[in-house]
Structure formats: structure tokens, C-alpha cells
């Protein structure tokens, strides 16, 4: 009679997520990130000067597909793989492996097979449409590529939103005449990419070092903590400035530097969790059963101690995005590729201030950082047993 089976929701991770995303604030954050992710994956389809389809002198062609870059294809194939895996519901390790394999295969294939035309003349499509050379053209929703500088329209090409009834620039254009909305959509990739990759690097280093420190304690712990303190003393922003000054700006360099300087936070969390988990009976029991160290660390301890790291990671993604924005704003970011910070930099560079150039990218940075912080807060509340009891 006392042995009735108590049934509750399945799995700890799932219950934490359900708990976290019960709040509307976390849901809003998630929706915003999903929108950004959608634009990041489908940027060339949403905003491109190349038409989807057109018929020129009796021939139907798709310039958009012809101009897809290898990077576009890699991102698309990884996205499709992720969607397929989501429905297959395989274990986590299998998913990670499958994603990595897709990434490698698609990278090799697309770089070796896909050769988009080097010289792009965006104006040709508009020319064709005007002259009637093309019988019909199906354009992308935002018919301007990120680097489609409309310099031939007047002096600077600068236009406020909805200025010209012929050309609809919803968010206006910048100095060289490129569409602001299109540039923002293409910049989503950098915003998401730098956040995830930099945080990913930091988490991998932090979890491995923190886990070893927590499990072995003693001398390993002491040496590890000194290393943590050394890395915590390095100011990330100034290291970034120095490296950019010496080696020029590169997105990958930025990701690595942010990752390598922010891991101590994760290491501290994992160490503290592992010190606690080491004393748990089920870990002691795993040792008493003679299980291999790999299994004790990664099967019995890590899944039970990962929650605080995930909370820290969602704040970490936000701060990585800010670092990139700061560097770009200081003019040390990427030169030609659009990024939100770089667009802000351009907005303040010209003699007079044009509000649309600052407002939209600035708002995007604000909302993205805000969204990550909202999710981080919700996750933190969900794993906090004290707050849960009160609720």
C-alpha cells in the first residue's frame, strides 16, 4: 500500500525546461532567438538581390540558387540535419555526432563542388526588369543583398525609410546605399555564431578542467584554481583590442579569444558541482561497482551538475555578442561583412546623424542580449530549489 508507484513528469532536464519556459518572459526570449535563428539560416532567401526565378528570352533560371555560397549551403544542411534529428528522438551523443558529421561532409562537398560566380552585378536584374528583357521575375521578399550598394542613385545613396515610392527600403539605406534591413538580416549569422561558438569553446574547456578539479581535488584542484585565477585576471576586451591591432580583425580569432578568456567562470561552476556530487551516494556506488572513470565523470556526475553551467552559458552568449558589437563599434570589427555593431559604427561616423541607421541595429543588439538574459534568469529560477519550494 505504501509501495504505490509515484508517477511524475519524465526526466529532470525536461522538467527544468518546462518549469523555465512556463514564464512568459522566457518564452518571449525564446521566440526572439528563434526569429534570429530563422533569419540566420535563411538570410540569402529572405534578403537577396538575386531573384528566385526569372524568365529571360524564353529561358527560366534561378540566379538565387546559382549564387548560394558554400557557407550558405553548410548552414542549410546542418539546419536540415538538426530538424530531422529532432523528430528521430535519438540520444544526445548520437545527435551531436550526427551534426558534426553533417558539418564535415557538407563543408568538404560544398567547398569542392560549389563555385558561385566571382563577379556579381546586382543591377542587371533591375535593368532587365525595367527594359522588359525579362518576361517575368520572382524576387525575394526583400529584394536587396547586403552588399548591394545602390551608388548609382544619387550622391550617397542615403535614404530614410519609405522615402522613395519606387524602391521600398523598410529600414532605409546607409551611406553607400545598401539596404539596412537586408544587412541586419545577414548580420544575424555573426550575432548567433559568435555567441554560440565562443560560449561553446569556453564551456568545453571549463567543463573538462572544472570536472577534473572537482573530481580529483587535492593538488589537481589547487593548480587548477591558480590557472583559473590567472585567466580571470586577463581583461578580455583589451586582449581582443591588442590581437585585432596586431593580426587584423577576423571573426574566428574573436571567437577563440572570447572562448579562451571566459572559461574560468564555467570551470568554477563545474568544480563546485563536482565537489558536491563526489560525495553523493550514487557516485560512491559507481566507484564501488568499479565503473571506469570516464563513465563516472560523464554519465554519473556531469548530467547532474550541468544545470548551473547552462544558466551561465545563456548569459555568456549575451556577453559574447556584446563583445563583438563593442569591437565593431570601435571600428575594429569586420570590414565589409555586415554586423550590428559595425552598422552602429557607420551610423555615428557621418557628419550628421541618421536615426534609422542607429535605431534598428541598436535595437536588435538590445533585444538579443535581453532575450538571452531573460532565458538565463528563467533557467536559474527553475534550477533553484529554494525558489521552487516557495512557488
Amino acid at each position, binding site marked *: 500500500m*505504501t*509501495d*504505490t*508507484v*509515484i*508517477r*511524475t513528469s*519524465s*526526466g*529532470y*532536464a525536461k522538467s527544468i525546461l518546462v518549469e523555465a519556459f512556463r514564464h512568459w518572459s522566457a518564452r518571449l526570449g525564446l521566440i526572439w532567438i528563434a526569429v534570429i535563428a530563422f533569419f540566420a539560416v535563411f538570410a540569402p532567401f529572405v534578403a537577396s538581390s538575386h531573384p528566385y526565378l526569372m524568365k529571360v528570352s524564353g529561358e527560366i533560371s534561378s540566379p538565387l540558387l546559382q549564387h548560394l555560397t558554400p557557407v550558405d549551403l553548410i548552414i542549410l544542411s546542418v539546419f536540415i540535419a538538426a530538424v530531422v534529428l529532432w523528430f528521430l528522438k535519438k540520444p544526445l551523443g548520437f545527435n551531436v555526432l550526427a551534426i558534426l558529421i553533417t558539418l564535415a561532409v557538407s563543408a568538404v562537398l560544398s567547398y569542392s563542388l560549389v563555385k558561385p560566380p566571382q563577379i556579381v552585378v546586382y543591377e542587371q536584374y533591375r535593368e532587365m526588369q525595367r527594359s522588359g528583357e525579362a518576361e517575368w521575375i520572382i524576387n525575394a521578399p526583400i529584394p536587396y543583398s547586403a552588399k548591394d550598394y545602390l551608388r548609382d542613385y544619387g550622391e550617397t545613396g542615403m535614404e530614410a525609410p519609405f522615402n522613395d515610392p519606387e524602391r521600398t527600403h523598410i529600414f532605409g539605406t546607409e551611406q553607400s546605399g545598401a539596404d539596412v534591413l537586408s544587412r541586419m538580416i545577414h548580420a544575424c549569422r555573426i550575432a548567433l555564431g559568435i555567441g554560440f561558438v565562443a560560449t561553446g569553446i569556453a564551456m568545453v574547456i571549463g567543463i573538462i578542467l572544472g570536472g577534473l578539479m572537482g573530481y580529483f581535488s587535492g593538488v589537481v584542484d589547487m593548480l587548477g584554481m591558480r590557472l583559473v585565477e590567472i585567466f580571470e585576471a586577463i581583461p578580455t576586451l583589451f586582449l581582443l583590442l591588442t590581437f585585432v591591432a596586431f593580426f587584423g580583425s577576423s571573426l574566428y580569432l574573436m571567437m577563440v579569444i572570447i572562448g579562451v578568456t571566459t572559461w574560468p567562470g564555467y570551470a568554477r561552476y563545474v568544480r563546485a558541482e563536482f565537489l558536491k556530487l563526489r560525495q*553523493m*551516494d*550514487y557516485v*560512491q*556506488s*559507481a*566507484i*564501488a*561497482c*568499479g*565503473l*571506469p572513470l570516464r*563513465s563516472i565523470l560523464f*554519465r*554519473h556526475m556531469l*548530467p*547532474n551538475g550541468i544545470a548551473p553551467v547552462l544558466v551561465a552559458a545563456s548569459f555568456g552568449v549575451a556577453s559574447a555578442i556584446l563583445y563583438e558589437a563593442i569591437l565593431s563599434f570601435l571600428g575594429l570589427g569586420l570590414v565589409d561583412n555586415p554586423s550590428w555593431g559595425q552598422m552602429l559604427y557607420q551610423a555615428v561616423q557621418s557628419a550628421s546623424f541618421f536615426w534609422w541607421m542607429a535605431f534598428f541595429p541598436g535595437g536588435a543588439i538590445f533585444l538579443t542580449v535581453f532575450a538571452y538574459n531573460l532565458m538565463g534568469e528563467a533557467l536559474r529560477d527553475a534550477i533553484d530549489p529554494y525558489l521552487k519550494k516557495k512557488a
Partner: protein
Amino acid sequence: MSEPLLEVQGLKTYLQTGETTVKAVDDVSFRIGRGETFCLVGESGSGKSITALSIMRLLPKDIAHHPAGHIQFTRYENGQSADTLDLLSCSDREIRTIRGSRIAMIFQEPMNSLNPVYTVGEQIMEALQLHWPDMSDKDARHKAIQALREVQIPNPEQRIDEYPHRLSGGQRQRVMIAMAMACEPDLLIADEPTTALDVTVQAEILRLMRELQERKGMSILFITHDFGVVAEMGHQLAVMRLGKLVEQGSVNDVLNSPQHEYTRQLLAALPENLRKQKRAKILQATQQKHIQTESRLIEINNLKVYFPIKKGLFRHTVDHVRAVDDVSLSIHQGQIMALVGESGCGKTTLGRTLLRLIEPTAGTFKYNGQELSQLGQKQLQPYRRELQFIFQDPMSSLNPRLNIAATLTEPMAAHGIGANKQERIMMARDVLKQVQLDPDYIWRYPHEFSGGQRQRIGIARSLVLNPTFIVCDEVTSALDVSVQAEILDILLRLREERQLTLLFITHNISVVEYISDEIAVMYQGKIIESGKTDDVTGNPQNPYTQKLLAAVPRLYH
């Protein structure tokens, strides 16, 4: 019948958790007379604490409500009944005048129920001055010292200025009682006041409560799960199950001739009664079935486990905690050796050291003639299979992220038992059957099980490796008595079937008397007495063992 003090009539307390309503207390009626001790007994989750909290109106209003019932509390002035108050319907202001001054409460966990940032004296004085606002600090302090003296705290003049962390668990519980008694309440509600304490301390606290009750003439509502304590304390007894009172009456009547089926089950599940049944069985069978060999399976020689106390800037070792201090012991094949002692005596450390979960400081121990204390982790690996451990807390001993199949088959894979996953799953299902669990539970996760079921899974996990020696560390102390009886039964049966040798670590003497062949009594890191269980419990030689055995609350004297 004595004059009525508290009358609970048809009390219902429903708890609202999300969508579901739990009928925690369902139509409960009882009556406590003046100067009487009323015991409320039941297993965990039966609603005994909720009943007490309902009387004090301490349940949070947003989740608890009372669809029906009255709690009539009679106030007395100078020995005369003055008026009667319904505690459920009176105003918040009125209930505050009742709480503390008329009805006081002491809780189970003495470690959490005192505020660590105030001294003991400040906390007692605060309670006093709340109820007598015109009392001066000097008078309050004097009264507080008196209260501490009444609960037999040595040197109350000095101890009054100490912080709670400087007191032991038993002393803290005395302070809690002193605090509750300082305002001279008519009714003391004691919610499992001795459950967290050692048996010798429990005996002292129970004696103290009886004395104070006689001197002050107050009533006690005593909530417990332990029938032995009931026999020591109570006048009246009520047995609670799933929010309902199934039986009530005088303690003698209920214990000696229980009427309700559930009460009989509970009493039959007590280790003392199990032991009687076992004796009867053995007499019938005329001879013991399992043969005890004389070969020593475990031999411990002068084992020492010290933990260094480090102090100062350079963390140099100033002293050691001698958790296990020069212990020699041998366990024969096929026997159940009980290791008995109070909390902090080093019995768990000894058990864990045998499995090398803790490294020994000095001394040796042999398993089957093989020296284990000096082996490296690699050489130890084959012995990890033969020596196993069952943990005390069924909640924390299973990895919450792994289902039962993974928990059971992973150790098998690590030791190369079973050819493939299918075979290992089949073997794991067999083991689940042996611990009387449905084999289909194998795909579930630990949080889907009750405490008793989890403990069975813990036993199953140690059995999958087919060990010869198992250390059972307080395996039943977190469980209800009926579940405890089932677990003990499983262990005894497995011992017969698999020729297991067990080191049974516990503080519960009646369990020891039921299950073990030999006993070793541990005190402050040393084994002070050992021998055949019947010899030691029947005729203890060491003064500490005598004190320990005398302190055990017994159902039948």
C-alpha cells in the same frame, strides 16, 4: 475521564497542489484531556504532522483549506475552565495569543529549528517577552536560566550565552523544549521530537518530557512513527493511515489487543515481533537451515582511519579525528555481522573503508585471505565485483538521470558479465524479481518509485555483480516500519539463496536482534564489545552496551 483540553471534531484538511487536491487529513476526531499524553502514530505521509499544523494553524493559507471540522480548545484560568475557542474559526489575533503561550510546539529537526545567529538565551528570552511584554530583561534572563536548568542542561548560567552550533543535537532539542515550556503552555505538540536523535539521548529526552509533564500538569500531543516510544510515553493512542484515524484507545488496549487490521500489520512488522515469529519458525524446523562455516571471509587487523584537522595559514595538521581507531574484527562466511553504534561513532567510515571508498590510515584488512588495504585501483578492480555496498538514503543513492536498466547493466558491462546488452537486461530483470519488483519497472527512472522500492533497486544494483560480501549501511533507517520488514525479509532470503555475508551497519537495536548472527558494538571509533547477538544483547558486559540496550524503547517490558 479527565477534563477536556482539546477536542478535534471531524477535521478535514485538504492540500491544493496545482490541479490535484490531496485529502491530507480526512474526518479526524479525537480528544485530549488535561495532563494527558495523546500519541498519534502512523507511517510517513499518513497526515500526522498536517494534523498538528492544522491545530496550530501554521499551514500556508493558499494551499491548505478546511472544508469541515472544529478544533475546540478550552482555556483554563486558575484551574477553572474559562472559555472554549474554536481554533479553526477564530481570528488571527486570537490564535497568536494561543500559539506559544497556550499551545507550544517542538519539531523533529533540532539542527534547523534554532536560529543560528542568536544565542540560546536570546531566543528563549524573546519567546518569554513576547508573551509577557512587561517582563524586564533581568527577569527574563533569570527565567530562561531556570528553564534551561529544568531541561537539565549543565551549567545553564554559562550555556545561556552560547550559540546553537556549540550544542549537540540532544542539547538543542532540550533547548527547544525549554523554549516551548518557558511560557508554561497547556498543550505541548511534539512532532517526532526524538527521531533525529541517538537512542540514549532519546531515552533521556523522553524521560525529561515525562517528568516535566508530571510537574506542570500539561498535556502532550506526541506524534511519532515508533511504537516503542509510544509504549514509553503515551496514555492515549490513535493510529493514523492515509488521513484517517483507523483505531484509537488507551495505549495498553491498542498495543495488546489491536482491533483494526492495519494496526495489527504495523505491530507485526516491528522487528521485535518479527523476531518472535523467527524463533517460532526455528523451533519448528528444529535446526537452522544455513550452515555457518568457520572460514573467515573478512579479517580486519588494527585498522585506523584518521581525518586530519588542518589549521592556520599553511594548513598544517594540528590533530586528527580518529573515526576508526584500532579496530580488529573478523566476519565469518555466510554470517550477518551487525555493527551497532550511535551517530558519529565511525561505523559508516569503517564500512566504506572496507570497500576502499575511504583510504585507511593504518592497519590491514583481508578478504578471503587477500590483502585489500594496499592494492592499487587496477588490482582492486576484480574485488569491486565481490564486495558491494547498499546505501542508507534511497533518494540519493540512485542516479536520477539514468533509468533502472542503465543503473543495473552498467556495472555488469564494466565487469564483463553477460555477453551483450539483451542478456544483461534479462539478468537485471531476474534480479528485480528477486527483490520483489515488477521486472517491467526496468525502463523507469528513480523518481517514479517510492522510498521502499528505491531501496530494493539499491539492493538489486549490488546483487547484479553477484557479490559474496555486502556492506548494508543503515538500509532501513529511512523507511517506514512495514517497508522495513519487507526489506529485512528480502535480505534474509537472499542470504540463504546466495550464501551472502553481510556487514549490517545500524543504530536500531531491535533490527539487529532480529537479523544478525553476530554483533559488534562501536563507540568513539573503537569496537568495545562483540560476540553472538543473543549473548551480547542478553548479557552485555560493557557499561556502554548496557546503557545502549537499556535506552531502547520496548513495546513489551
